[in-house]
């Protein structure tokens, strides 16, 4: 078996000092293989967002090691960290976080621009990514002209346009209604069936149910880690296509 995309060992994160110390993570260890589709669930305050931010190289752990595609992220400097965020990780936020007053296609192009891809090639790849999420016809729209679901799908296109080893989604459906949630989850299902590695956080059971593997986090510790479907097959959402199809 090839090396895991994600290899986290004994990750701890402590906020504050003295009396006010908060143990957000109390030694989390987890590995994620290529092609897996993992949902991390937990109530608020369980440390799932902290874990996600560390996995996305947006925050640094207090202790523990984090190997991303075999690279020890905790030892990287600012430049290499920027490179890792750009090439290895595609991050999807709960609040979409598109750049305002900038067209959808320009938003999707942004990571490619930071990667130094030529404008022509960039435009081609951005359009292809928008096509994957079904928004090629909205490329010229600015974020405020798109619905929440459409904005989140643009964000997904932006996350996958650099062909990252890992897609991270922090409550991607948290701000969406059920219809838009369905749209976004369908995109995730398709991405998973095409072999992408996805790790997402959610507190909605119907989102967790569709993942191949479900991890529950309570008070900064993993309590359950259940495989729901085989890693080398499409996720249940696609198999049960009839149930979810519109």
């Amino acid at each position, binding site marked *: 078996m090839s090396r895991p995309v994600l290899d986290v060992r004994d990750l701890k994160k402590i906020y504050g000092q003295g009396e006010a110390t908060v143990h957000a993570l109390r030694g989390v260890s987890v590995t994620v293989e290529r092609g897996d589709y993992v949902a991390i669930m937990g109530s608020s305050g369980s440390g799932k967002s902290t874990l996600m931010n560390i996995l996305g190289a947006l*925050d640094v752990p207090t202790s523990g090691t984090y190997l991303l595609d075999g690279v020890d992220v905790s030892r990287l400097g600012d*430049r290499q960290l920027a*490179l890792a965020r*750009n090439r290895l990780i595609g991050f999807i936020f709960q609040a979409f976080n*598109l*750049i305002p007053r900038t067209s959808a296609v320009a938003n999707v192009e942004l990571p490619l*621009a*930071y990667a130094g891809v030529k404008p022509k090639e960039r435009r081609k790849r951005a359009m292809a990514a928008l096509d994957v999420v079904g928004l090629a016809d909205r490329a010229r729209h600015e974020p405020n002209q798109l619905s929440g679901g459409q904005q989140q799908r643009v964000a997904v296109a932006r996350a996958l346009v650099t062909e990252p080893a890992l897609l991270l989604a922090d409550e991607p459906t948290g701000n969406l209604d059920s219809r838009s949630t369905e749209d976004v989850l369908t995109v995730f299902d398709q991405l998973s069936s095409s072999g992408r590695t996805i790790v997402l956080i959610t507190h909605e059971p119907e989102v967790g149910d569709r993942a191949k593997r479900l991890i529950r986090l309570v008070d900064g510790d993993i309590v359950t880690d259940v495989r729901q479907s085989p890693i080398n097959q499409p996720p249940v959402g696609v198999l049960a296509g009839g149930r979810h199809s519109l």
Partner: protein
Amino acid sequence: MSFHEVVRFALRGLSANKLRSALTMLGILIGVAAVILLVAVGNGSAQAISDRIEALGTNTITVMSTGRGGSSSTALTKDMADALVDPVLAPDVKSVSPVVSSSATVTYEGTDHDVSSFVGTTPGWFTASNTPVGPGAAFTADDEAQGRRVVVIGQTVAEELFPGTDPIDKQVTVGGALFTVVGVLAEKSSTGFQDANDTAVAPLTAVRQVLTGYGSLNSILVEAADPGKVDAVQSEVSTILNQKLNVTSSTTPYRIQNASQLLATQTETADTFTTLLGAVAAISLLVGGIGITNIMLVTVTERTREIGIRKALGAPRRVILTQFLIEATLLSVIGGALGVAAALIGSSFEIVGVKPVIVPSSVGLALGVSIAIGLFFGGLPAGRAARLRPIDALRYE
């Protein structure tokens, strides 16, 4: 990521908030334009003054009587003028022109014209007073010696009496005597309120005979051999005159006007004026600079979240910093360039009667200061934002 690309990001950032960017640029525009234009006005008035004084001739001094009522003991006489031509006592004097002048009515074929200054002098006056003759010729030393009634008239006189005809060799009547016009003075820029072209110049002897009589001279124009010797000439002239007039006390009955001294005083005054205007304008530039600082602080604070997003997408610190630096610099450079353009356009008009003359160094200084302000105060908040951890920037509200 290429520099060109970062510039495009910066432009997009600026155009995302057009009104704000435009107003900030306006602040810098006004500051830069004010500095350049006000300094140009100060400089222009200084130059106008020195031009006028130089038109009088900077290598001459004028001796005038201070005595009132023309008492014979203090009046300037032809004798004194002749005494100033002395190679031993006054070696630096090049020429001496005694001058009498009065107003006179000049008549030609029934047309009258009142000449405000009808000057009687010697031929040396033309070069000494920097008054070249245009068409025709000046009168000669022989004309002067013989007392021939010839006259060189100014442009205004020529236009009034001889509209559309050549005045040369025509005869005009002045004070009941006929004078032959031999030349017309080249056009001269007016000094102050008097029309410098409303004049006529004739030989001293003829004017004394016809108009002023043989009393005292109005003034004596003394020309120095070169502009550097003006002060020497002044002391030589006072020595001779003191001797002639038996001056013992410190107050002399005559006054010596030195054009270069006048020039120095006037230039000094004008410089003070320019400095004052520049200082006022510099304050407005400073205010414009504070405007940029303020806007950059607001922009960066407001866009901290955007900076977080960009960092999460893999933007290195350097690129973020460059983007905001370029935004700030563009604001100040475009504002400054427009300010320079506005100043250049403004300087082609007369402002309160002064033709502004741009001082090149003020353009460089104003632009430089505005750019430096943009770089420094734009760079400060940008640097702070670029150093933030992405998660802190994203959480920023």
